[in-house]
């Protein structure tokens, strides 16, 4: 897992790209907890989201979970191949399993996210 990732408490990861856009995905912890994914709904490109707002949903045999925007901004790209290949989320959650790319309104919002150590500490304290 790359060290430059930041995490939301709601288990989304964020990676700043060279072009200033943020790539967002779901942590391996969250994917493992859901198990057996069956459906995913992605947002439309161009949609504006606010930090903490639901932008998509994942259904597993266990639960429906919301995906929350870690920062405010515009969805500029979605991983359209993902809903048809949900196993990618488990196999490569920090690579090919990326979910959306967001052009952030205020990149400083990244400062409010967790670094890897803090996120590991958060999920380590949660019972499986």
């Amino acid at each position, binding site marked *: 897992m790359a060290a430059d990732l930041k995490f939301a408490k709601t288990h989304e990861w964020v990676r700043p790209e060279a072009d200033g856009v943020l790539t967002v995905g779901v942590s391996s912890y969250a994917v493992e907890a859901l198990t057996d994914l069956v459906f995913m709904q992605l947002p439309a490109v161009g949609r504006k989201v606010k930090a903490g707002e639901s932008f998509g949903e994942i*259904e597993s*045999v*266990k*639960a*429906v*979970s919301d995906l929350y925007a870690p920062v405010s901004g515009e969805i500029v790209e979605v991983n359209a191949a993902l809903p048809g290949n949900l196993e990618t989320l488990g196999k490569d959650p920090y690579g090919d399993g990326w979910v959306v790319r967001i052009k952030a309104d205020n990149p400083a919002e990244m400062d409010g996210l967790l670094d890897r150590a803090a996120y590991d500490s958060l999920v380590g304290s949660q*019972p499986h």
Partner: protein
Amino acid sequence: MNTLTIWWDAAADGPTNMAADEWLAAEAERRGSLLLRFYGWTETTISLGGFQKIDEARQIEAIRGVPLVRRPSGGGAIVHGSDLTYAAAVPKRHPWGASPQVFYDALHGAMVETLAEHGIRAWPHPADARSRHDESLFFCFDRRATGDLVMAGPASGTVSKIMGSAQRRLAGVVLQHGSLLLRGNTAVAGSARHPAVSDIVGGQSVPEETALSRAWGARIAHGLGVAVREEETPVVRGGDLGIEASSSRFRDDRWTARR
């Protein structure tokens, strides 16, 4: 976190019940404790899983004309009206809120014990047994997932699912609602009619709904080591809770026919 609060709610239509379940989730997060709601239906109603296709429902002759409501949770369709329907909500920081299976197992395990008090033997569908997650199975009670409650019967050598639940995991809280198929629903037939506890136990009497739910609530509270507190005001009639206004989303075709 040291109280389990329970509502025995008034019967309501599908959209009102779904809005009340969402209110329950928000309230559990606000209170920081487990909340439980038992409720009825003013008429036989099908609740669809959050991602089921509406066209599938419309093609099933056995449920033609039966009102539909789409749940915020996943899973298969349930025919409500003669079942024991519940919703429970717990903050994610609660020991039962951290992962999906823990909450299912806690509530379903307590139901196994409660039914056993009435001489009814049910057990959780085991993790190593073959699951039937096939999305082509429209009804919840045709599917099997780990922890679903099953019973032997009604025919010799068969096993029937009698209780299933589904979750919506929000940012800080988990909403779980589910159904114990206590009695058969005569408003539907064919593929929509599944063996109920009453069908399986034959001549044996089936526990009365309120007594069963009260005993189940007590078992759940015992498992947590907390006290039960009963709320008298029905959620669905709480004019100041905003249930009626928020039920409009569940009446809207943009929600019901979203897939």
